[in-house]
């Protein structure tokens, strides 16, 4: 079985060779005093079509058209080769017309969002695995509501059994708003734990006002608050993993449209070009 390391090495080697070939052709064109923009432009367009087909293949999910993991590898490394082609095509500089500038920005944003997506899909799953059991994204609201109900029940129980309102008051002021919806998503994403720590400290601070039964209830609430934080963590990670595509995909449609117009314009104004 090919390991991921071996596969990465092989794919980088192929990509390197492709890049070398493209640069060599570019140099040969330069030496022969020919404009390479038409050649690298069309190769770039072919690469872009190949990249766009990836999403189509994703939808044709039961057809025997090579495994999706192979397609993704092709998508990633073709994207890198296309970036080189794009930079050669634009002479490593920002174009001067407003239309071309928009196209340039679209392409670079598209490429960067793709690279960010690759990075997210490599690093975030590790972080989710490191923090407890994987939860299905669509079930998170259900589980969060269950935790909120359990904590509310515990707060009510504390009033009945300890004849004290400390926990119930804390629930109304602090916990109920915390449990209502996902919280501190950015904090979870960047690895911050401060709000969570502050909440746990605040919970432990209540101990001094409680009897034995009250403390038992508080420990249970503390555990449930941790479970809620874990759910928020999962929500933040999974939401990020799902939502970057909503940025990457629409850009693709815009980019393809602008590219087609660009090709038409180039040929419309290319009379007399070699």
């Amino acid at each position: 079985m090919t390991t991921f390391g071996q596969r990465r090495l092989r794919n980088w080697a192929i990509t390197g060779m492709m890049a070398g070939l493209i640069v060599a052709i570019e140099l040969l064109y330069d030496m022969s005093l020919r404009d390479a923009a038409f050649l690298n432009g069309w190769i770039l367009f072919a690469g872009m079509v190949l990249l766009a087909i990836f999403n189509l293949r994703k939808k044709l999910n039961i057809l025997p058209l090579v495994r999706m993991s192979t397609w993704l590898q092709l998508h990633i490394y073709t994207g890198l080769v296309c970036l080189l082609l794009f930079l050669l095509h634009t002479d490593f500089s920002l174009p001067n017309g407003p239309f071309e500038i928009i196209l340039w920005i679209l392409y670079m944003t598209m490429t960067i969002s793709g690279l960010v997506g690759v990075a997210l899909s490599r690093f975030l799953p590790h972080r989710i695995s490191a923090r407890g059991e994987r939860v299905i994204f669509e079930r998170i609201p259900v589980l969060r509501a269950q935790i909120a109900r359990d904590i509310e029940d515990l707060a009510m129980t504390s009033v009945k059994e300890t004849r004290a309102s400390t926990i119930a008051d804390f629930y109304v002021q602090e916990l109920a708003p915390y449990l209502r919806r996902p919280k501190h998503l950015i904090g979870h994403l960047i690895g911050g734990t401060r709000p969570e720590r502050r909440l746990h400290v605040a919970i432990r601070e209540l101990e001094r006002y409680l009897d034995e039964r009250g403390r038992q209830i508080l420990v249970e609430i503390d555990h449930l608050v941790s479970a809620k934080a874990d759910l928020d963590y999962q929500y933040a990670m999974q939401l990020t993993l799902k939502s970057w595509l909503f940025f990457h995909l629409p850009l693709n449609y815009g980019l393809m449209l602008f590219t087609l117009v660009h090709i038409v314009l180039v040929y419309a104004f290319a009379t007399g070009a070699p």
Partner: protein
Amino acid sequence: MSISVAIPRPQRWDRPLAPDMTEGDVLRVLFTLRVLGAIDQGQFPSTLSLQDIIRNDARIRRYRRGEVIIRRGDYGNALFVIISGVVRELLEQSDFDASSDADVHERRGFFETARQWWRQADTPERRDVSVYQDGHDDHGLALGRRGERESIQSIEALITRVPTRMLTEQDMFGEVAALSRAPHLSTVIAETDVEVLELRWQGLRDIRRRDKGFRDKIDAQYRASSLKAHLRESPLFQGLHETALEHIARHTLFETHGEFEWSGDFKNLADDSIDVLYSEPVIAEHGDYLDGLLLIRYGFGRISERLDHGHRTVGYVTHNEVFGLREIVDHWRDDHDLRLRHGLRAVGFVDLLRVPTALVEDYVLPNIPPHKLPGPPSSTSIRMSADFKWEAELPLEQATINFLMNNRTINGTAAMFIDTDRCTACDDCVRACASAHNNNPRFVRHGPEHDNLMVANACMHCVDPVCLIGCPTGAIHRTKDGLVIIDDITCIGCATCADSCPYDNIRMVEIRDDKGDFIVDQETQAPIVKATKCDLCLEQPGGPACQRACPHDALTRIDLRDRERLVDWLGR
């Protein structure tokens, strides 16, 4: 949404095994076959009479001379009793055995798959209601009616080439596969034109439950056939003279450990690795005197060793593997102590043969080339695999081994493993599964987890599929190559299989007609439900859609018997 169609609730015998089985056939069978004629019919309730069982769960089949009746290596679920004629059981491998490479499923073509994709409905679980309404099964889906018969031209030449056993009227065969949910151990060919009664598992199970005489007879034959066939099958005993083999067979014990229907006990166990291990029946204890070599015939054994006050799991043995040979070899070669260096426990249900140590030393070991025997006593090999390979402890972390053993994931031949370090929860696998299966995925992307390994709730197509045991109609069954599938038309929605599955991998779904409206019971108006589960995309051209759809190489289907692939995949 309106309720558009009501049908009678499906019943057990709506679709008998042979619709043309007549009352006269039943009486003829009872009159002719002693094994059935001797049964006291008074033991059967009026709702489940012996005659009804035979009429619905049995059929009379006729084979012409030279036709293959059952093939070694195929899974089967029926007992065969010869009514007339002679058959030959081939005692060794032959050209007529099932081929492990053969794809027995008819897969869709590319364009048919494209059409299936294009025609996906917007509501899930749509069915053609007409197939439930007509009483007959002319849709080619009835069990055991698929496939063409294979035949041999010169049976005499075959008999001279391969050792055989002749079976005549009243003799039975096929019971080993039916009772042990394992493949047939031999191929059986019609030597003359023959007539046999085929009694499928559901009928066999009900008769066995009620009649002690029948049960004892079948079980005795099961043990006898299984013992000899398994000895012949094991690479250790190949090449032994028939007399020596007979001698060994006479002194070999056939043992059964654990519960045949182990699902309930397993479900009751808390997820506590220590409790799980101690709940498993001990077959051989670490340090015990080794009185015999253990050959696993069916099921799984947990290999463990004592560590201070507990037991450490080091691996497992399964079909056709042996346990204790290393100690016997060391004793035979270097006069080492004959004490077990590891213990063995039954995981679920285990059939095994115990071959006396003295006979192994006298007959078996001198017959094996020295290079095939284990190395010096210091080497760590603990078991011999089916292909005569010595294997060491599983090179996995202890916690991973415990996880796989305690969750009995080792039962899977197509367990869905998800590497959560790579899974981005994109659900492409779920969508692909839904596209392939009536717009409703056949698995849940969730399940027991250990570190970065998740075993998702998808049918594992178990080596020992306990879900099959209770099915009243045979709707859930094994294909010849071992896939566990559900025949939707035959399923009556009783949920017995879903309740029996130890891993909760079978789901009951409410079905709809082709307009998307629910199909209901015409009497109670309650929705008609059907059991559904992963069928490993057996009709799809490229195999499991989930695995092909995963862009991140996070998901795979693994046969846990293939330990090398398991270790490779986990260590990618």
